[in-house]
C-alpha cells in the first residue's frame, strides 16, 4: 500500500465506524481531573473518563547532540525536512543512519547523481523476498510477530530497534548494504563526532555488518525450521542464503565536511509527550521521554497507549498490529469504566 492508500483506508474506516473523528484538531494539553482527564485542543476542550494515547513513536526526528558542530556551509536535513533529491544542492551528501529511512534515502539520492556516503551503525538486514515469498509473509506466518512483549528477552532493545532495511517497490527488490554499494554508495562506520571540520566514523563497521548478517541468517534459519515443521516446505522455493555484506578493505574513517553539501540525519525518531501536563508526565514518562506502560496500560487510572513499537507483541510495531492490541487494551479500559474507578 502506498501512503495515500493507507490514508484512504483510514478515512473509509472512520466513515464505516461512524466514530466522532475530529480532524485537523491538535491536542495542546492533557491533565488529570478528580474523575478523569481534561484534554485541551486548538478547537476547544474535552472531558474524558479515559484516554488512549495513540500519537505514535515518531513525532520528532532525533539528531546527535554534536550535530551543532557541523560547519554552517553544510545544509542539515532530517527526514521531516526532506521531500526529494531536487531540493538538495548538487554535490556530495552524507546520510547518517542505515535503517529503513537511511537506506531508502541513500539509494534515492545516489540515483539522482549525487555521491552518497552512508554512515552505518547497528542495523537490521532483511531480504525483501525469501524463498519466493515476501519476508513479511514469513514474519507473519512463522509466528515471529506473535511474540509477546513479556516474552521478548530484551524488551527495551526491541522497542528501540531501528526499522529493517526494507523498501516497498513493485519489483520487490532487496535494498541491503550490498545493493547500495552496487549503486555506488560509500559505506562508512557509525558517525561518532565532528572535530575540526571533519566527521569521524567508527572503525567498527565490519562488526556491525557481521552482526546484521548473522542475525539475518538466524531469522532465515528460524523460517526454514518453521517451514519444515509445519510442512510448507513444498509450497515455497528452496532454501537460500545471501552474500555477506561487503566492506571496503579500508573504510573511510574521516570525512572533511567542507567538501559535503548536505548531511541528512536518518538517526531515528522519538515520541513527543510535551503536551502531557507536568504531574501526568512526571508519573508516566521516563527519563528518556518514553511513555511507561505495561502492554498499553499506563500507570495512571484510565490512561492507555496504542500504536507503539512492541506494545504487546512484535506485530504492534506495524499498522496491522493494532487489531489484537486494541481488543486487549480496550478490554482493560472497559473493565476500568465498569468498576467506576
Amino acid at each position, binding site marked *: 500500500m502506498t501512503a495515500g492508500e493507507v490514508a484512504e483506508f483510514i478515512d473509509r474506516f472512520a466513515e464505516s465506524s461512524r466514530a466522532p473523528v475530529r480532524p485537523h484538531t491538535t491536542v495542546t494539553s492533557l491533565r488529570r481531573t478528580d474523575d478523569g482527564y481534561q484534554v485541551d485542543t486548538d478547537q476547544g476542550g474535552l472531558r474524558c473518563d479515559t484516554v488512549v494515547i495513540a500519537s505514535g513513536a515518531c513525532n520528532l526526528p532525533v539528531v546527535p547532540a554534536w550535530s551543532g558542530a557541523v560547519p554552517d556551509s553544510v545544509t542539515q536535513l532530517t527526514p521531516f525536512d526532506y521531500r526529494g533529491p531536487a531540493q538538495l544542492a548538487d554535490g556530495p551528501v552524507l546520510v547518517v543512519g542505515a535503517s529503513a529511512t537511511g537506506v531508502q534515502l541513500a539509494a534515492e539520492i545516489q540515483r539522482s547523481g549525487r555521491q552518497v556516503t552512508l554512515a552505518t551503525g547497528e542495523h537490521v538486514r532483511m531480504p525483501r523476498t525469501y524463498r519466493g515469498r515476501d519476508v513479511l509473509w514469513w514474519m507473519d506466518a512463522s509466528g515471529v510477530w506473535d511474540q509477546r512483549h513479556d516474552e521478548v528477552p530484551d524488551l527495551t532493545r526491541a522497542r528501540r530497534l531501528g526499522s529493517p532495511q526494507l523498501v516497498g517497490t513493485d519489483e520487490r527488490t532487496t535494498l541491503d548494504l550490498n545493493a547500495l554499494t552496487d549503486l555506488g554508495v560509500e559505506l562508512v562506520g557509525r558517525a561518532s563526532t565532528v572535530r575540526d571540520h571533519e566527521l*569521524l566514523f567508527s*572503525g567498527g563497521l565490519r562488526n556491525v555488518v557481521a552482526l546484521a548478517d548473522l542475525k539475518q541468517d538466524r531469522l532465515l534459519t528460524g523460517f526454514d525450521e518453521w517451514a519444515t515443521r509445519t510442512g510448507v516446505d513444498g509450497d515455497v522455493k528452496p532454501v537460500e542464503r545471501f552474500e555477506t555484506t561487503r566492506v571496503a578493505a579500508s573504510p573511510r574513517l574521516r570525512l572533511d565536511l567542507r567538501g559535503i553539501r548536505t548531511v541528512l540525519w536518518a538517526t531515528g525518531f522519538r515520541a513527543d509527550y510535551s503536551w502531557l501536563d507536568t504531574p501526568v508526565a512526571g508519573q508516566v514518562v521516563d527519563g528518556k521521554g518514553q511513555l511507561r506502560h505495561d502492554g498499553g496500560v499506563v500507570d495512571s487510572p484510565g490512561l492507555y497507549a496504542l500504536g507503539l513499537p512492541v506494545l504487546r507483541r512484535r506485530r504492534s510495531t506495524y499498522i496491522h498490529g493494532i487489531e489484537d492490541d486494541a481488543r486487549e487494551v480496550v478490554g482493560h479500559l472497559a473493565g476500568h469504566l465498569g468498576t467506576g474507578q
Partner: protein
Amino acid sequence: MTTIGSVDNGVNVQALLDAREALKGSPEAAQFTWRATTRWENGVHTTTTVKDFFGLGAEQTHKARSTFTADHPDVFAAEDNGITPIEYLLVGLTSCLTAGVASVAQNRGIQLRSVEATVEGAHDIRGILGADSDVRNGYNGITVSFSIDADASTEDIEALVAQSQKRSAVFDALTNPTDVTVKVV
C-alpha cells in the same frame, strides 16, 4: 648518548633524528606490526604475552618476553588477578605521553628532574553491562595531569606536553578512529 649541552634525559635523540631521515627515503622499512597473544585463564582472567614484532623489514624480538595479567576487581565479582583491560589503555597512554615529554625535552635542551603523570578515565559501566544503550562502552573522558620539575618556564613545559600529544601513538589511537578487524581463525 647524544646530549645537547649538559642536558641528559636518557633519550638518544640523535638516533631518532637519524632514523627519521633514513625512513623518509624508505617508507617500507617504517612499517611495523606490533603483536600480542592473549590466553584465557578462567573467568575474566587472561594472560597476554608480548615478545616479537615486525619492523625495519624484518622480524624483531624484545630482549625479554613480557607478560600482562588482566582480570576484574572484587567489586565485579571477579578474582582481581590483575588490572582491567581498560586500565591497560591508561597505562599505554601515560607511558607514551611521558616518553614523549622526555624525548621532546631532550630535543629542546630541557633537563628534566622529575615527571609524573596521573591519569583518570571516567567510565559509566552501564554501557558494558547493557543497562542503558545510550551509554557508550568506553571511556566518557580521560584526564591526564602532568607534574614536571625541569629547568624550563611553565610555558616551555606546557609546550613539551602539547608536543608529546602531537607525536603520541597511543594518544592518536585513543582520540581518532581506527579500523578494527576481529575474526575467528
